[in-house]
C-alpha cells in the first residue's frame, strides 16, 4: 500500500517537474499544482497509511495519526493561495510581455556592468567641503 503510494507520488512529482520546465506559462502553473498534490500525499504516506478510525474522539479508537492531517490541511490552503498568486502573476506577465513564452522573458541581470566609476586618487584631491548642494546623484539625498 505504501509502496504503491510512493510510486504514485513519483509519477505526480515527475509530471509536475516536466510541466514546470515547459515554455508555456500555463503549463508551468499546472506543474506547480501537481508538485503540490504529490507533496501532500507524501506527508500522508510517510506518517504511515492506516485505515483505523478517523481522529474523531466521538468514535471508538484506535485512531489514525492526526498530525499529518493538520499539516496537510495547512498545505492545501497555502498551496491554493500560491497557485492563485502564480496564476495571476502569469496573467500579468503575459499582458506585459505580449507572449506566454517563459524562455523569452527578458532578464535585466544580463546587462553589462558600468565600470567607469570615479576613483579616489591621492594625487588629485577634491576640495574638503561637502557637496550636497551640487549633487549629481540626487537620489542619494532623498534616500
Amino acid at each position: 500500500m505504501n509502496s504503491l503510494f510512493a510510486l504514485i507520488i513519483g509519477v505526480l512529482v515527475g509530471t509536475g517537474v516536466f510541466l514546470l520546465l515547459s515554455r508555456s506559462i500555463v503549463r508551468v502553473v499546472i506543474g506547480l499544482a501537481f508538485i503540490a498534490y504529490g507533496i501532500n500525499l507524501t506527508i500522508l504516506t510517510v506518517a504511515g497509511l492506516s485505515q483505523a478510525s478517523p481522529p474523531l474522539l466521538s468514535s471508538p479508537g484506535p485512531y489514525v495519526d492526526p498530525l499529518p492531517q493538520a499539516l496537510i490541511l495547512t498545505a492545501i490552503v497555502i498551496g491554493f493561495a500560491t497557485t492563485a498568486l502564480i496564476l495571476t502573476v502569469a496573467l500579468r506577465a503575459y499582458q506585459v510581455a505580449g507572449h506566454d513564452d517563459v524562455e523569452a522573458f527578458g532578464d535585466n541581470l544580463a546587462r553589462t556592468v558600468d565600470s567607469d566609476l570615479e576613483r579616489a586618487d591621492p594625487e588629485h584631491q577634491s576640495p574638503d567641503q561637502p557637496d550636497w548642494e551640487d549633487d549629481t546623484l540626487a537620489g542619494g539625498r532623498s534616500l
Partner: protein
Amino acid sequence: MLTLAVLFPFLIALVCALAARILGRRTGFLAALGFVPALLLALPLLNMPAAAPASELTPWVAEIDLHLRFRGDGFSLLFAVLIGLIGTLATWYSVSYLSASEKFGRFYPYLLAFGGSMLGLVLSDNLPALFMFWEMTSVTSFLLIGLWHTRGAARDGAVKAFLISALGGLGLLAAVAMLGIAGGTTTLSQLDLEAVRASPLFLPALLCTLLAAATKSAQLPFHLWLPTAMEAPTPISAFLHSATMVKAGVLLVAKFGLIFGASALWSGLLVPLGLATLAWGSWLALRQTDLKALLAYSTVSQLGLLMSLYGLASDEGRFAATTHLLNHAAFKAALFFVVGIIDHETGTREIPFLQNLRRHLPVTFVLALLATLSMAGLPPLGGFISKELFYEAMLHHGPAFITVAVLGSILTFAYCARLLSIFFEHRRTLTPEMEAFRQQHVREHIHEAGPGLYLPPALLVGAALLFGLVPGSAEWLTRTASNSLNFGEYKEHLALWHGVNTALLLSVLTWLAGAVVVWRAATFARFQSAVTPTWNANTVYYRLSDGLRAAASRVVAHSQGLALPDQLRVMLLAAGVMGGYAVWRSPQVFHSIGVLPLSLLPIGVLLIAGALGVLLSRNRLTAVIVMGLTGFGSAAAFLAFRAPDLALTQLLVEAVTVILFLLAFRYLPGVRDLPRTRGRLLLDAGLALAAGAGATLLTLSSLRFLAPPISPYYLVNSYKGGGGQNAVNVLLVDFRGFDTLGEGLVVGMVALAVVSLVKLGKKGPTTTPPNPRIDPDKINQERVNPDRRVEVSRETQN
C-alpha cells in the same frame, strides 16, 4: 570604569543621532561628552606603572568565550587617553570646521562609534572581543571615509580601505583562534606563553597577526588605502589617520610582540617591512602637491618607523617606539588640524596655489612651524628626541638598517620643508588650466581662523613643545607603559643633549642632506618622476578589483541571467545531486503491494490518469479538467485514509481552483506546448524522471520512524486541553494556533496581491523601464530567435 569608557561613546552616538536635527552643528559639544569617561582614565594612569592593572569582566556569549573583559594596564590606558583626547579635540574642531549643510546626524554618531570601537580595541583583554572591536573600527572607518557618499571618489576610497582592512581582519580572526587554542584561554593577559611558543600553531598565528597589523597600519604593500582614505573630512582624517585607527596595527604589534617577539622571524619580518615603509612613504610624500595627501604618505612612513621599532622586540625598541607614538600623535594630529584651517580659509590644499600664508595666518603659521619641525626631528621638539632614540636603536641593529632609516629621515626632512613652503613666497609657474582653477577656487582675501579652529592644534603643539623642552614629561608618560610592555629594566633617560654621539652626527647628516634635497628640489622632482614605475600598488589593486567585478557579473549573467526554465534546471540538478546522495545513503523499506485493498485501485487510477492526461492534453480546458481528476483523486485518497476534513477542504479548493483557471483563461492564450529542442526535451524528461524517482525513494526511505511519534499526545489532550472531539481541528486552532493565524495571513496577502494585479487590467506596461539602457524588447529579440518571435506575435493577433 573601563567598561563605561568603551560603551559610553556608543550611547552618546545614539543621543547625537536623535538630537542632531535640533542641535545642528552644536551636536559636536554633546558628542565631545562621549569621550569624558575615556579622559577620566587618566586618573588610574597617574598611578602607573606601579599599580596593578584593573580588570573588569562582563559575561556575554559564554559559549564562544566572548566576554567584555577590559584590562587597564599602563599601555592600554595611555592609548585610551590618547584616543579620548584627540577624539575630544576633533569633535570641538569640527564644530567650527564643518559647513552648516553637513549631515551632523551622521557625522558625530559615526565618529563616536569609531571612537568607542577603538577604545574597546585597546582595552579589551578578551581575544574574540578584541577581534570584534578590530572589525568594528574597520566598519566605522568605512562609514566615516565614505561620509560624503555622493562623491564617487569617497565611495571608492571607503571601499578600498574596507577591503584591505577586512582582509587583515580575517588574518586576525585566524590568529586569535589559534592563540586561543594554543594558549588554553581566550584572555590575552592569561595566555600560557610557553605553550603558545611550543605549539605548531605559533608560526601561522605569527604570520596572520603580521598580516592584520600590516593591513591596518598601512604597511607596504597595503599602504595604498591610507592616502585615498583622505576623502573623509579633515577632522576625521586627524582622528582616524594620525592618531588612532592606523595605530591599531602598531598596538597589535606592541601587545602581541610580547608573545611572538621570542621568534627571530618576528623581528626579521617586521623591521625590514617597517623600514621599507618608512623610506617608500616619505619618498611618495615628497611627490605630493596636495597638503593632505602629503600628510597621508607621511603617516604611512611614520607608521613604518613605529613598526620597525616595536618589531625589534627589545626593551630599547619598545621604549623608543612608545615615546615616538606620543610625539607622532601630537604633531600629526596638529598638522591635520592646521591643513584643515588652510583649506577652510583659502579654499584649496594644493601647494602650488598657496604662498606667503604667514602674513595672513600668523597663528596657524606658528602652529604649523612647530609641528612640522617636530615631524622633521629638529630640536628642541619632541620629534627630535624620539628620532635620536630611533637612530640609536637602528645603529645597534646593523648598517643596512641605519642606512635606510637615515635615507627615510632625509626625505622626511625634505617633505617637511615642502609643507612649510606654503607660508613663504616661492616661485611658481601656473599653466592656464591651473590659473583658471586658482581664480575659481582660491580665495584672495584670507583671514585668520577663529579660536575654535586653532585652539585644538595649539594644545597638541604645546604638548610637542613640552615633550622637547622638558623631556622628563614625555619620559614619565612613556614609563607608565613600562610594566605592560616589559621595558621597566631599560634605564636610559630622555634628554635633549646626549653629548656628541653617532646618533647626533647622523642627525646632522640628515639635516644637511635634507637641506640639499630642498635646495635642489626641482632637480630632485625630475629625478623622482623619471624613476617612478608606471605601475604601483594602486594599479594592481584596481586591476584585481575590476577583474573581480567582471568575473562576478559574468557569473551572475550566466547563472541568474537565464530564463526561468534554465534556472529551474540548474536548481533541480543541484538539488538532485544532493538529494540523490542522501537517498543513496539511507535504507529503503519496500512493503508488498499484494495486500492492496481493492477500494484503493480506482483512487490510484484517478491520480495517475490526471497526470498522464495533462501531459497529453493540447487544449487548456481539457488540461484543467484533467488536473481536476488528480485533485479529486487526492480528495478520495484522503477519504480512504480516514481524513474527512482534508477531503472536504481538497474538494472545495479543487472547485475554486478550476473556477480560477477558467476565469484566468479569458485573458490567457491556449495551452500550447511550445516546442523544445531535442536536447532540452531529453534533459527535461530526464530531470522529470529523476525527480519522480527521487520522490518515490524519499517516500520509501521515510517510512521508518526515527523517533516515537508525538501524535498520541494530541489524541490524549485534544479533549482535555482543547475541549474538542475532532483532534485535527483542535490541533490546528489550539495547539498550532499561531501557524494557522500565519496561514490566514498568507491567504489574505495573496488575496490583496491578486486583486491589485487584476486591477491593473489589460493595460500593458504602464511606464517606460526606469533605466533607459535596458530595453526589454531588445533583450527579447536577442534571446528569442526571429522565427519564434513571428510565431508569437501571430498568436497574440489571433
